[in-house]
């Protein structure tokens, strides 16, 4: 167990507790609860062919599902963004080859980092709400909820990033 692993484990448990104790009860404007737990995926070190991240993200989502009685919705969505993380990063940076080991999310210029966070958050939330309603006729509700909740999550994520960056 090196330092990085311990940090990840603490973050994993901390984010689950934060999500189920505080964030699931916010109900801002009636129904907006941010899914801030995906911060784990933003912060997890970027490695090539990382099967551990896939398994961890699946478990992270599953724990959230267990606590909020939502089947496997969060697990599916979190796993999906963990899988598309590297391709999204590649297209955001605009380079096919990523220098694994050297690149971290903190070293990205702000607009690129912001775009990366926005894309992953939006995809995650869209899958969550899409699977919750699972009807084309409810597309407007799905879209509005995705949009509003994404904004909330992105704001929280950005604030947390500045805190983490200052600490480093």
């Amino acid at each position: 167990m090196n330092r990085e692993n311990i940090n990840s484990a603490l973050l994993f448990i901390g984010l689950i507790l934060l999500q189920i104790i505080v964030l699931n009860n916010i109900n801002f404007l009636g129904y907006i609860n941010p899914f801030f737990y995906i911060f784990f995926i933003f912060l997890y070190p970027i490695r090539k062919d990382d099967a551990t991240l896939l398994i961890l993200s699946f478990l992270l989502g599953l724990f959230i599902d267990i606590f909020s009685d939502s089947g496997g919705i969060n697990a599916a969505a979190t796993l999906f963004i963990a899988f598309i993380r590297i391709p999204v990063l590649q297209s955001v940076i605009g380079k096919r080859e990523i220098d694994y080991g050297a690149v971290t999310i903190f070293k990205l210029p702000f607009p690129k980092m912001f775009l990366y966070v926005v894309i992953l958050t939006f995809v995650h939330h869209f899958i969550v709400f899409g699977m919750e309603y699972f009807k084309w006729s409810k597309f407007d509700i799905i879209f509005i909820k995705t949009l509003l909740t994404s904004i909330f999550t992105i704001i929280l994520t950005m604030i947390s990033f500045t805190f983490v960056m200052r600490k480093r």
Partner: protein
Amino acid sequence: MQQIISFLYKNKLFILFLLLEVLAVIFTIQSHSFHKSKFVNSANFVSGGIYNRINNFKEFLLLKKENERLSEENVYLKNLMNMQDKEMAEIDQIVIDTINYSQKYRYTGAKVINNNYRNNNNYLTINKGSNSGIEPDLGVINSKGIVGITKSVSANYATVLSILNVNSRINAKLLNSDHYGSLTWDNNDYNVVQLLDIPIQAAVYVGDTIVTGGKSTIFPEGIPIGVIKEFKTLNNNYEYINISLFNDMSSIGYVEVIKNFDKLEIKTLEEKSTNE
């Protein structure tokens, strides 16, 4: 063969992803079918325990409201008791027949430790499970009205399918005319549910009381639900009937779980007659 193995090896990440994704989708589908969600629910030891702890803190904030509700119920029960006293005083002798004694319903008190009311499919978690005789498919009420039906049960906890769930269908009737319908929720307002399948012959007025019907084996007849808030007729049918609930579903403290002892008998009888 070698090619297949090398192909699998090259795409091992994608295969892992696909495997887990399918697993997640299976969990999701299972949670939608009524009885099958075995693994992923908040009735297990860990999540139940954590929610129990969180609820111990939250409880203090709700004490005042809970006390008011209890005293209201006390007054109601005392009035009921006094009414019976008078009737009983008219009979000289009271014979309690212990041989023919039959209990139809049993009430178990429980505390709600987690309550969702903003999602599409809402569930509550209560702190009593199979150790206290809770089973799947029992009715859950409090003094103000119905709350839901138990779904998954573990040793010490159970999840309750809230009436605020798009999958929930509860038999309900008009208090004054005995017309039956079923209670659903359209996922708009957590204080308003919908009553469907009421025939046009039934005279419906705003302010009428809706109670549970005796048709279901889950709830006893006459548990209050709410009053009619608004309704609309279309083509000689009720297009919708909106009911505002007596219960404030956003703050539910203590509940009672109802077990119907005649349920098995009724169910077997009904199955027998449909098979014939």
